[in-house]
């Protein structure tokens, strides 16, 4: 059973597992999906890519940022059967750029899309910064960390 104690202005409650088994009666305000202030995930409500998503890490802002944006946009809007098959040129350009900065874009990541998540987590994941960013980024906290190699 739960025990309640008051120490001055502070109230202390000890609860057992059973105490907390009943569903909570606390009411939370409904979320507005179109709230302009809210932090967004990778894809914005209007379908565009959120380049400022913490999940991308430094991909869109680094020296190869432009190439990355071109390639990823092309992939995102690609309507081909094999998504992204019409974007090979952009991906090649991006890969070339990335090869010039091996420090920033370690070469063990082959696939460009996995590069996204891995690089972003690589740069910002798992450490204090990313922790906050993961928290800040509501959409993919778990996938980030697990994707990290």
């Amino acid at each position, binding site marked *: 059973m739960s025990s309640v104690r008051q120490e001055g202005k502070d*109230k202390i409650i000890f609860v057992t597992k059973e105490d907390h088994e009943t569903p909570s009666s606390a009411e939370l305000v409904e979320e507005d999906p179109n709230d302009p202030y809210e932090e967004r995930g990778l894809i914005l409500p209007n379908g565009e890519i959120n380049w400022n998503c913490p999940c991308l890490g430094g991909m869109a802002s680094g020296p190869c940022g432009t190439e990355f944006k071109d390639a990823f946009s092309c992939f995102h809007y690609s309507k081909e059967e094999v998504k992204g098959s019409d974007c090979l040129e952009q991906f090649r350009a991006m890969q070339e750029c990335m090869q010039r900065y091996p420090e920033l874009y370690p070469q063990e990541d082959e696939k460009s899309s996995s590069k996204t998540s891995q690089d972003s987590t690589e740069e910002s994941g798992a450490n*204090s910064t990313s922790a906050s960013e993961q*928290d800040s980024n509501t959409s993919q906290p778990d996938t980030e960390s697990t994707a990290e190699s």
Partner: protein
Amino acid sequence: MLKCRTVWKKLAPLARSSSTLCRQNVKRTGLNNGRIPTCVPAANMSTGPGGLGGDNLKYTIMVGAACVGSLTYAYFLLKGDQKRYQERIEEITTRSQRSSKEEAATVQSEPPAVEATQTEAVPESVPEAAPSPEEPSPPAAPAEEPAAPAEAAAPSETTAPPPADEPVVEAPPEEAATPVAAPVVEEEPSPPSEPPAAPAELAEPAPAGPTEPAPAEPAPAELAESAPAEPAESSPAELAESAPAEPAEHTPAELAESAPAELTESAPAEPAEHTPAELAESAPAEPAESSPAELAESDPAPVVESEPAAAAETPTAEPPEPQPEVVAESAADSTPASLKVPSHSPYLLIGGGTASFAAARSIRARDPGARVLIVTDEPDLPYMRPPLSKELWFSDDPSVTETLRFKQWNGKERSIYFQPPSFYINSEELASAENGGVAVLTGKKVVHMDVRGNKVKLDDDTEISYDKCLIATGGVPRNLQVIERAGEEVMKKTTLFRKIEDFKSLDNVSRNAKSITIIGGGFLGSELACALGRRCKTTRQSGLEVIQMFPEKGNMGKVLPEYLSNWTTEKVKREGVKVIAEALVKSVTCKDDKLEIHLKDGRLVKTDHIVAAVGLEPNVDLAKSAGLEVDSDFGGYRVNAELQARSNIWVAGDAACFYDIRLGRRRVEHHDHAVVSGRLAGENMTGASKPYWHQSMFWSDLGPDVGYEAIGIVDSSLPTVGVFAKATAKDTPKAATEKSGTGIRSESETEDTATSPVASVTPLPPVAHKDDYGKGVIFYLRDKVVVGIILWNVFNRMPIARKIIKDGEEHADLNEVAKLFNIHED
């Protein structure tokens, strides 16, 4: 109204009578044919019809002649000035070629020379000179100088070298002034290279305008100064000229201002060195160099001028010309060629910490091809601070102080630097890079900010203009007054912990010292105490005594409610730290190479080294020059909910006192806040106009048993409600990390070995020990609304906490709210 009426009543009859009189007289005169009318009204208008005669004619002729004469004089004057201006321009251009070959002999000669000219130039500009000049040359006849310097000052806008102005002011227009100016000037140049700059500046406006070639005459110099737009201003006539010069003056000022950038270029490393390049620079600047040259050493004159130009203080009239010269010059001059400072950057970020980097990333993501310049006075590229007091201390690597790499919660290693150096581009390439980039200028401090002109001045006098600016200057650690007053010996054994160099020095100290005392019981103090305590426990550093003292009753006394703070203090003690609570330091002395700390209650603590972790003083040095508001309650720059201080200026990070829509005005000094606010500022700089909405969080780990995440306002003075689960062995930061794999704990591998001895000392409670706060949630209430939440040893539930704070609802039973967190699960 009544008065008017009465007056009118009085006067009316008089008027009527006089008019009647006139009429009568005229009639009678007409009748009497020539008889002078009597009682003619007193006022006899000289130019009235009656008085038109020889007198009038003479008068008209005189006035007319005077007008014509003055017009003619003015015309010839202007013509003459124009001619002299042309001659001067020619002379200067030829001279600049000559002078560029020469080395400036003395700067001093120049300033005086320049000054002399300056002074001559525009008396009127005196008021303008007022702002910039500083004091240096008090004596000498001010005379018209003020005008000249004023002009110079005006264009240069900020500071410009006050000394320079001074000399100018001092130097009387005439040659006599020159000798006076010379000594005056000499004093000035001595200190910084600024003074030369000043004269140069003055010169600059002058060149902008016409410059009198008048050799050996200060006057010509002035001419140069006065009116770029119009030739007029010749020296001798200065006074006369001053009138016409005035408009001219302002013009040069404008011209000067429009070309600030160039000057900055030359500046970077430039001391008041006279280099040929400078000369070249000055040449285009055209200052009244010619005059000074004539007066004093002609060579130095140009040099002097160039210098100021180099100082980048004065905007040159000829932007393009000086630029190449300056560039060449600075390259030749400054040792590190790569330190060339760009003159303009669309996005300028002052400060190179977490907030600044987050903003840079945000800007680059939203504005394709953006050019971002970060200016920092630290020698390092942007890095993150939390590992400096946590992970880096747990590293096994003996070279950790060099590599600055640490192991994250998931075992992967990374550097504390956000990005390796290859991420950034050189500042020289910033303007020309095709896709833009982020450039970092290290070791440069911004000392002055000109909001109206949209530019900043660095400590080496270069100027950088911007379109949008972010101030993310963070803060400096506070120090205890007793330590500051204790003297040099004590200060040498004290560390104020914040930067990488502080970490390196403390690491060094910890390897050699026998006892370290940490003053301060907050986040930084407690984390460092635990880190050092653990280090001495893990074999490497046995024998190191770690003492922590603070005025509160327990660790984190200002954050955690009392019961929890006491519990935490016990845990810290178990980490091997000797905790002295309720300790107020009275004085510190150094005796026999050891420090003695005297506490107010009489206790004496002897130690080898002190680490002061007593808070952060936000850096608001730029508030004065930029005209930014500083908050009196929280410190820091006062900004609105969108983090904007004034148009085109945003502030983020530790230095920002912002308006949180949900929680009110506050200033937060945590890492995640720096990231969130930096990112938001970057978004707003690229046009987003979003308020601070996403609530930032913070976390702390104090050993293997105590770890928590928190969000919102977490102040121990607020009433709290804590809901705790009966703890099990599974509830520790370490366990959370291992199990979930997604925790954000900052544990490291050394935890494994470290915990074994610790675990035996503190066996985790099997079942509900009444006072054992294993894990739970603590709500902080303000007017019955939850404004802060601590997740105590409960991880990965931050989004729920964030939502509760965002809602801002009054909840009747917080136990029900606590159910949302599922604290019994992992």
